[in-house]
């Protein structure tokens, strides 16, 4: 009698603890999103999204940060997606699974993926700005400072390095979902390997490549550390070009929270900016999830 009561109690207790942990996570997410939305709701307006900060960033909008984030992820994608796709093509279509070079590349990709993002920032500073930038300046501008300083280009390329593993892995996965039989069919029709890749494998995996791109973009949009040293600016009165520093959403939140002249006054803007960043990454991730779901469905058919 007592024994069975104990057993029951133990069973109920374990279920309770696991359920509690699960609920805790949901609660945290709900609280976080609710707080951010309640705080930021009043800020969200067309004007907030389209105007410059004013009065020492205690009023006005966040347009330059949105603009900078958009440019950053676009340039980053232009660099990371083709490069990552080509690497993934090499790994799935050309390299032999067990070959030394394929193993080495896979190891490098895994390692890249776990390097803390601040290290990427330091690498970007050391490599792109101090090394590449300085050499470009001395070669083309007689040593005057143009490219040897933080700017949008170097920040985007640093971010591209950070997101490269994401792109490679998801494109590789997408290419692997293309059945071998289709490659065989194409080759048996007298297609070359490259024709097979270009006309059969890539079209079949295009949505997977899109998924990879979106995941990379959403990762890039939210990261701050890699661009701290390589291009992010505190405040700018004009919109940036490739060679300029730029404002960006993630860094803007940090600046408003810690560096603002009046933190309390800028609080609504902090909430508003956080809201925008959150929605941006949410929408991006959702579209990646939907695309991936559609690929799985197609694959199962």
């Amino acid at each position, binding site marked *: 009698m007592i024994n069975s009561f104990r057993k029951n109690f133990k069973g109920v207790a374990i279920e309770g603890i696991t359920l509690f942990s699960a609920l805790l996570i949901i609660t945290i997410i709900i609280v976080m999103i609710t707080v951010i939305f309640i705080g930021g709701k009043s800020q969200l307006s067309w004007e907030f999204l389209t105007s410059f900060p004013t009065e020492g960033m205690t009023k006005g909008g966040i347009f330059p940060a949105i603009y900078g984030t958009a440019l950053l992820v676009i340039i980053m994608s232009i660099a990371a997606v083709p490069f990552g796709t080509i690497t993934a093509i090499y790994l799935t279509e050309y390299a032999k699974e067990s070959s030394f070079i394929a193993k080495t590349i896979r190891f490098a990709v895994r390692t890249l993926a776990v390097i803390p993002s601040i290290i990427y920032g330091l690498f970007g500073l050391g490599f792109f700005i101090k090394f590449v930038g300085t050499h470009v300046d001395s070669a083309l501008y007689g040593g005057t400072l143009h490219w040897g300083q933080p700017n949008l280009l170097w920040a985007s390329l640093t971010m591209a390095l950070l997101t490269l593993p994401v792109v490679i892995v998801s494109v590789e996965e997408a290419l692997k979902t293309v059945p071998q039989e289709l490659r065989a069919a194409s*080759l*048996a*029709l007298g297609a070359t390997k490259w*024709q097979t890749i270009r006309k*059969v494998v890539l*079209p*079949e995996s295009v949505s997977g490549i899109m998924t990879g791109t979106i995941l990379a973009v959403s990762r890039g949009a939210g990261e701050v550390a890699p661009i701290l040293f390589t291009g992010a600016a505190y405040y700018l009165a004009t919109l940036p070009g490739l060679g300029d520093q730029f404002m960006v959403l993630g860094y803007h939140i940090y600046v408003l929270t810690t560096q603002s002249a009046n933190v309390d006054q800028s609080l609504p803007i902090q909430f508003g900016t956080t809201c925008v960043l959150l929605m941006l990454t949410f929408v991006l991730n959702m579209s990646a999830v939907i695309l991936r779901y559609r690929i799985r469905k197609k694959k199962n058919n």
Partner: protein
Amino acid sequence: MSENKIHTENMFLYYSEKMALNNISITIPEKKVTAFIGPSGCGKSTFLRSLNRMNDLIDGVRIDGKVMIDGVNIYDKNIDVVNLRKKVGMVFQKSNPFAKSIYENVAYGPKINGVNDKSHLDEIVETALKNAAIWEEVKDRLGDSALGLSGGQQQRLCIARTLAVNPEIVLMDEPASALDPLSTAKIEELIVQLKEKYTIVIVTHNMQQAARISDNTAFFYLGELIEHDKTKKIFTNPEKKQTEDYITGRFG
């Protein structure tokens, strides 16, 4: 036998160190249907795939001996595999249409071979679909996805796709094994028609099928070619005891 199309001499095939084909010498006549039969793992599919060098795609495959098509050894160094595969088409066990329209599936081969003229392509597609006995079923929906066709239609589409490249030889690796009896009958009927223009080599597990459609039959067992003769002779009066045991269902 009419003119020799394919001829192998003392051909061996190894997967790494394991011998998969042992000393195959065979002559396959032009514009006939030749069936390869034998139990699973006997090497018949491996042999078929070595006739258009699809085995090249597998790591560690090595081939010794001669594989001649029209008197040329297809494993010579100066042979262009891409051209070889245009001449020696292949239909696979599982129908494998591309996720493209019916039209684009058939036009794929001609297009990669540089045919771009729309009316010329239309003509090739129509002829190929007619030759594969599927034109009547799909002529009004050429733009639809090929994946919407039934299994049997997909397989005939794959045959049309192969024919569109205008091969001389069509290799078929158990083309009807995944199909229902009605679709199988259509494919068999089609194969018999195709031999007017093409040399057909077909691997099949189905001995009745081999008996129905082939002119010659080759029996493979454990990587060796046991017997190769007129189909009628193989099925009524085989020379070798192993052949007789297999076709009478005593093993395999």
